[in-house]
């Protein structure tokens, strides 16, 4: 019997809400199948399995809060006998006792966003007075409760009674009748229901705070002459229908992936020491226009052709913007690439996404004076920056890596 546990979808994730089971007991599953949809700060994520077999029991109920590592389902491996009465009502088996309180919290009506904010601020939902339909707690209710706690003194934990406007503050009773209908999910419409800029912002905040707290960053940068790369790209795109045109980003991603083959210490996670990763999975930063970023993974970027990398971007970027990614696309990255050149900046000093140990930042390509072989010329120049974890590597390693990227970009036809 195999156990399927709630995966971690990033350093910043502690739990998610199960929103849908895509399978039922007795269903056959194969590696890569999506078995559930889980709501996280990064949207509704499709959760994949990595085993083959038959679904045994589903141990978590829809809409339950599921901490990372919680046993969600059992899987009977291919070849083992399947019990006749596999179906069983989802129970609290396997959920740590500490989570029972959280489960009880979940029976209080509240919007997902309100629930999340309250959880992050450590405020019990039972202490918040809901003003939404049927007394549901809305984001505004939670924010009122937070401000009521924070406002009076710098001792939020000691403040039990809101000093003013008790109706909007913390209330121990839940009998109050809602005054007027309020939108239950007070978020701006985005592609995935129930999400807003704020939830993504909080996910970014958590990951970046952890990074800044724990990772001793060092930075290196180099200027790269992009003449050959851009000329090659321009010629390549002339031969292609518009739908198959390549963007400069694919050259950068491929050069990074190739360079990681040469310098594998940067394709790693830092978890109780350096853990090199066999696959080169590049996380590519996608900016959301409404604020925040998503970092979907391009798996095995070193073995993909430039066309395949472009197809991967065509697939991933719209889904990242719609907050519709799969678990493996959020959790598998072994390095991050961010290209910020569009806004005109030249240099990017990035913050590493833990537990990764490196981030490569590319600025914009600008015309600059370029001295070579005693001659001065004007060239399209790109600044590449490495932010690396000094626990995992040293400057000489980083230097070899940036130099390798630079060299690969001089031979775009070989990428």
């Amino acid at each position: 019997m195999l156990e399927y546990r709630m995966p971690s979808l990033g350093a910043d994730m502690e739990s998610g809400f199960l929103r849908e089971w895509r399978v039922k007991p007795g269903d056959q599953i194969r590696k890569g199948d999506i078995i559930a949809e889980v709501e996280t700060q990064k949207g509704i994520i499709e959760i994949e399995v990595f085993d083959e077999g038959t679904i045994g029991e589903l141990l978590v109920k829809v809409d339950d809060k599921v901490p990372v590592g919680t046993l969600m389902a059992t899987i009977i491996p291919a070849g083992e006998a399947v019990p006749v009465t596999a179906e069983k009502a989802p129970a609290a088996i396997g959920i740590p006792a500490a989570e029972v309180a959280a489960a009880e919290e979940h029976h209080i009506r509240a919007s997902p966003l309100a629930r999340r904010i309250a959880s992050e601020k450590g405020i019990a939902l039972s202490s918040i007075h809901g003003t939404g339909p049927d007394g549901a707690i809305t984001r505004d209710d939670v924010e009122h409760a937070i401000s009521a706690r924070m406002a009076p003194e710098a001792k939020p934990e000691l403040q039990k009674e809101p000093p003013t406007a008790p109706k909007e503050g913390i209330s121990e009773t839940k009998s109050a009748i809602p005054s007027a209908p309020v939108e239950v999910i007070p978020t701006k419409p985005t592609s995935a229901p129930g999400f807003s800029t704020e939830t993504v912002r909080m996910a970014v905040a958590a990951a970046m705070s952890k990074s800044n707290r724990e990772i001793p960053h060092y930075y290196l940068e180099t200027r790269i002459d992009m003449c050959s790369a851009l000329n090659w790209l321009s010629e390549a795109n002339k031969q292609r229908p518009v739908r198959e045109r390549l963007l400069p980003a694919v050259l950068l991603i491929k050069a990074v992936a190739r360079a990681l083959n040469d310098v594998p210490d940067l394709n790693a996670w830092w978890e109780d020491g350096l853990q090199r990763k066999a696959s080169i999975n590049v996380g590519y930063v996608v900016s959301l226009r409404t604020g925040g970023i998503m970092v979907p993974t391009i798996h095995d970027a070193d073995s993909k052709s430039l066309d395949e990398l472009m197809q991967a971007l065509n697939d991933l970027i719209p889904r990242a913007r719609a907050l519709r990614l799969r678990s493996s696309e959020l959790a598998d990255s072994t390095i991050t690439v961010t290209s910020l050149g569009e806004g005109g900046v030249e240099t990017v000093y990035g913050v590493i996404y833990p537990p990764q140990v490196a981030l490569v930042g590319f600025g914009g390509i600008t015309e600059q004076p370029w001295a070579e072989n005693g001659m001065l010329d004007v060239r399209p120049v790109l600044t590449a920056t490495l932010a690396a974890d000094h626990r995992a590597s040293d400057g000489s390693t980083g230097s070899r890596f940036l130099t390798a990227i630079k060299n690969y970009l001089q031979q775009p036809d070989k990428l």
Partner: protein
Amino acid sequence: MTQEEIKQTLLQRLKSIAPDTEPSQLKPDDNIRQTLGIDSFDYLQFIVALDEQFGIQTPEEDYGKIQTLKELTDYVDARVKR
């Protein structure tokens, strides 16, 4: 197809590529990408949509000529009539 019809089609396309922007607020001489915050990836999707919708071909070297709504409308208008 009149210039106004082309313009309305372009605005609809921009809205579908970047749903969280307001293309209808664009002034004729505004730089489309800068004003709406459209990156090179979205811009490529827009060109793809444009070429398919109007049955034209927009080579990469023309991107610089179609930065504003007015330039783009004129560009499409000239090619649709060919």
